[in-house]
């Protein structure tokens, strides 16, 4: 089912315009360039570059920190202009707003004329150059706006077919699809939807529908439960931005709690405010996926910030209401936590959740392969539910224990004696003090038949607090047990058993 015909107004490089700086500008977040101005692009600065690389390419570059609140505040007059021309404009993010195309097309006598008129008005009133794209569904409309085109009705699948996967803006999914040989949206849309859902999860299934040019409201609940909106009345009218931010956060949490209680999430949010002199303000925010609680809170905060800064409100805001829209069923477990979707995974997760309820959160673990020299550092046990992040990076780790890995990682006392019954020592030149003869471990003494080593390990000698010097030896005992013994500070210990 194709989406409604949407007109999308896109201001290119909006964070740069919002910052108000001229010349070559780059907006930087987490040490990476997020947006850059056209002059900076002429010097070779691109999205994703590190700040230093960008500054190297363009010495006169002005670097501005990323501030979504500032972007939203600055976008408020633009969206106010659009709202004066057409009804029902919704903000997707600062710099992008969408409106149903049918109304303005009828009013202005054609889609092209409506687009021109809006661009002109926005340029006149806000001094901002905007581009307009019209297509079915906001995803296709945004891509059309980037190309500055109006896609004829029914032409969306054809328009999307040749676009690359990177336009989906899913950095985890895109390399995976590329490795599977899927490089265009057309190829992705050709996959069966149920397979995509099973293999990649809910988010990928939503994006798959977008790639096919379908409705971007796929899983709306047919009869959402009533009374999902939350409202707050304030005794003191809110006139300051920080008070508004605090109120926004509290209200957003209430809304999310209500939605989560029903197992739902929303993709659109209507923010309504009433001021002390009876003026009513309303704004619709849309999102491609589901809105997380932080996203809801951020958008309410930005919106209140924008209203308080730009509208000359005589009184402050006395009522704030949030109405969720585009409500969908929420998958309770995040896909990607354990790497796959599927009924077996959900069953396993439910079991682990129950055991954590029984024994505590630190009772069920999963193993994460990490970097390290020994089996106990190579594999980190992470409580189930925590992020599976390796503690140390992978790498050559010289001096690591060679494969094959042992089946048991034990720790215990051991006595390693030579033929004369003396404890075996290892000199600084890695020479044994005698012939290895007997090992006492687990309370019993066994003859040594074969051995190898000593292998030295000298870790972190530059840091006196954590420096470790030890020597390892593999031994094969007469009862066919194979062990790894470690000599630390003159004392032998049992480290591993090759069971």
């Amino acid at each position, binding site marked *: 089912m194709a989406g409604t015909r949407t007109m999308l107004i896109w201001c290119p490089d909006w964070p740069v315009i919002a910052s108000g700086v001229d010349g070559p500008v780059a907006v930087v977040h987490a040490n990476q360039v997020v947006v850059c101005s056209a002059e900076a692009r002429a010097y070779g600065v691109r999205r994703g570059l590190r700040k230093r690389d960008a500054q190297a390419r363009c010495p006169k570059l002005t670097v501005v920190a990323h501030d979504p609140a500032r972007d939203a505040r600055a976008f408020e007059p633009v969206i106010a202009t659009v709202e004066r021309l057409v009804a029902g404009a919704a903000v997707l993010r600062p710099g992008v707003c969408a409106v149903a195309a049918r109304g303005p097309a009828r009013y202005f006598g054609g889609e092209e004329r409506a687009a021109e008129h809006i661009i002109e008005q926005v340029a006149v009133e806000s001094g901002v150059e905007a581009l307009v794209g019209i297509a079915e569904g906001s995803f296709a409309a945004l891509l059309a706006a980037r190309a500055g085109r109006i896609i004829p009705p029914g032409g969306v699948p054809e328009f999307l077919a040749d676009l690359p996967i990177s336009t989906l803006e899913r950095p985890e999914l895109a390399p995976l699809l590329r490795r599977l040989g899927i490089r265009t949206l057309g190829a992705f849309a050709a996959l069966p939807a149920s397979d995509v859902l099973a293999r990649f999860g809910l988010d990928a299934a939503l994006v798959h529908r977008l790639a096919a040019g379908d409705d971007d409201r796929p899983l709306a609940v047919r009869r959402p439960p009533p009374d999902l909106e939350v409202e707050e009345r304030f005794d003191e009218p809110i006139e300051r931005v920080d008070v508004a931010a605090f109120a926004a956060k509290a209200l957003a949490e209430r809304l999310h709690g209500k939605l989560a209680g029903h197992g739902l999430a929303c993709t659109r949010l209507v923010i309504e405010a009433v001021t002390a002199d009876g003026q009513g303000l309303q704004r619709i925010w849309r999102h491609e996926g589901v809105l997380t609680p932080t996203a809801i809170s951020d958008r309410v905060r930005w919106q209140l910030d924008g209203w308080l800064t730009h509208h000359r409100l005589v009184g402050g805001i006395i009522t704030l209401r949030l109405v969720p829209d585009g409500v969908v069923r929420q998958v309770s477990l995040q896909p990607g936590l*354990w*790497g796959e979707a599927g*009924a*077996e*995974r959900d*069953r*396993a*997760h*439910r*079991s*682990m959740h*129950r*055991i954590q309820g*029984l*024994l505590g959160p630190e*009772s*069920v*673990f*999963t*193993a*994460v*392969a990490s970097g390290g020299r020994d*089996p106990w550092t*190579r*594999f980190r*046990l992470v409580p*189930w539910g925590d992020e*599976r992040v390796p503690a140390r990076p992978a790498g050559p780790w010289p001096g690591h224990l*060679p*494969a*094959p*890995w*042992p*089946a*048991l*990682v*034990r720790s215990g006392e051991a006595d390693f004696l030579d033929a004369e019954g003396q404890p075996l020592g290892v000199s600084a030149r890695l020479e044994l003090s005698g012939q290895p003869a007997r090992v006492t471990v687990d309370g019993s003494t066994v003859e040594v038949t*074969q*051995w*190898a080593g000593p292998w030295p390990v000298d870790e972190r000698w530059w840091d006196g607090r954590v420096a470790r010097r030890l020597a390892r030896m*593999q031994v*094969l005992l007469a*009862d*066919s*047990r*194979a062990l790894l013994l470690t000599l630390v500070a003159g004392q032998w210990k049992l480290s*591993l*058993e*090759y*069971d």
Partner: protein
Amino acid sequence: MAGGSALAQLKRADELLAGGVAQGAGMLPVLSPLRDLLPWPGLRRGSTVAVTRGGSPGATSVMLALIAEASRAGAWCAVVGLPELGLGAAQELGIALDRLALVPHPGPRWTDVVSILLDGFDIVVVAAGNSAGEIAPAVQSRLEARARARGSVLVPFGAWNRPQATLWPERSVWHGLGRGGGRLRWRELVICARSKGPPRRATLWLPGPARTI
């Protein structure tokens, strides 16, 4: 006996079809040398297969080898009560670490823990009996019945009262070590199994020269 070998070929093709890990399939796949040891052409869902210590070391490797192929094919495995498990050996055998759950210290309520795991996982390895001493036969049969009802495989790691099959290592010979040089490289492991009838034997290289078994 051309007829007998033709019949054996037919059986092999049937095993190939039944090699899926989905809940509906009755059989979980298992490494081919172990297939001759079990009374079924794989790990049958709902069964109890015990791995005990035998005359030689290597019991942990036998347990890991038993669940390796199923885990590689997509099954979810859990190991209860074995805090010393060497995860490197598990990963080498092909066990998927992101589908392996570990409960190293289940405590006194380990039977509840195992019951909950049998609900959600395809294979549950239980090594709790050794520390707590003997397990009461009533408890054992309750866990076996739960495994049968849920279609999961219960693998007791230690003594168990009348499982449907028992595996243990009989002989383990390491190669590669010398007197002062070399290192442990390969191991020849003879696994013995008993279900109904006389014990059967199979030899595996665990780990083997070509990283395959």
